[in-house]
C-alpha cells in the first residue's frame, strides 16, 4: 500500500474520530486539533500498524492518548467544569417507588443485532450520547469507547471509584431513557 493510500484510508475515519473527540472534549476546535494530531501521528508511525487490529481500532488507540493528554491539560484550567455536580446520587433510586418496586418496569428491547442493523439506530444512539452532560459523556466514552480501566479514569480525572460508578450509572440510565423515548417508543421498533 502506498503512503497516499494509507493516508486516504486513515482520513476515511476522520468523521468517527471527530465524533468521539467532540463527545469527550465538548470543544469542537480542540477536537479538530486532536484528530489532526492523531492522523499526523498515524502517518508518521504507519510502520507501527501491523494490521492485526482494524485501522479504526488502531487510530482510536492513538486518539485515546491524545484525548487523555488534552483532558489532563484542561483539568488544570479553571474553566473546566467540575465533576462534583455530576457525581450527586440523589436520583440514584429514581427507578423505584417508595415501596421499592419498579416505577416503570424495564421493557424487552428485543434482539440487539436486529436493532443494530437498522439504518437509523446509531443516529439515535449518537443523538443520545450528544445529550449527555459533558463530564458524564467524557467519563462514559473513556470507559466504553477508549476502554480505559476504572483506575486510569479515576487517576486522570482525580475522582474516586465511587464517583466513577455513579457517573457511569447515570450515563447508562440517561442513554436507556433516551433510547426508550426516541427509538423503542417508535412503532415497529421493539422487535
Amino acid at each position, binding site marked *: 500500500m502506498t503512503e497516499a493510500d494509507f493516508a486516504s484510508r486513515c482520513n476515511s475515519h476522520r468523521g468517527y474520530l471527530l465524533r*468521539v473527540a467532540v463527545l469527550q472534549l465538548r470543544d469542537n476546535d480542540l477536537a479538530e486539533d486532536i484528530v489532526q494530531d492523531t492522523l499526523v501521528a498515524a502517518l508518521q508511525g504507519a510502520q507501527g500498524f501491523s494490521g492485526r487490529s482494524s485501522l*479504526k481500532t488502531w487510530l482510536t488507540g492513538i486518539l485515546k492518548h491524545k484525548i487523555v493528554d488534552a483532558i489532563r491539560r484542561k483539568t488544570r484550567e479553571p474553566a473546566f467544569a467540575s465533576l462534583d455536580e455530576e457525581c450527586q446520587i440523589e436520583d440514584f433510586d429514581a427507578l423505584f417507588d417508595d415501596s421499592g418496586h419498579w416505577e416503570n418496569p*424495564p421493557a424487552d428491547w428485543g434482539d440487539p443485532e436486529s436493532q443494530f442493523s437498522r439504518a437509523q439506530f446509531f443516529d439515535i444512539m449518537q443523538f443520545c450520547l450528544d445529550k449527555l452532560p459533558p463530564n458524564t459523556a467524557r467519563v462514559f466514552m473513556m470507559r466504553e469507547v477508549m476502554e480505559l480501566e476504572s483506575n486510569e479514569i479515576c487517576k486522570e480525572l482525580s475522582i474516586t471509584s465511587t464517583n466513577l460508578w455513579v457517573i457511569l450509572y447515570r450515563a447508562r440510565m440517561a442513554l436507556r431513557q433516551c433510547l426508550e423515548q426516541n427509538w423503542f417508543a417508535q412503532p415497529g421498533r421493539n422487535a
Partner: protein
Amino acid sequence: MQDGNVSLPLYLRIRLHLIWCEACKRFEQQMRFLHMAMRRYRQ
C-alpha cells in the same frame, strides 16, 4: 461490564434475586444491550 466490586454475600443475594425478578432480567439485558451497542459504535 461490571464496574463496581461487591462482596461475595451481596453478589449471591443479587444473583438469587435475579433468578425470580423478571424486570431485573430485562434491566440487565438492557445494560448488556447498551454495552454491545457501544462496542458496535466503536467498531
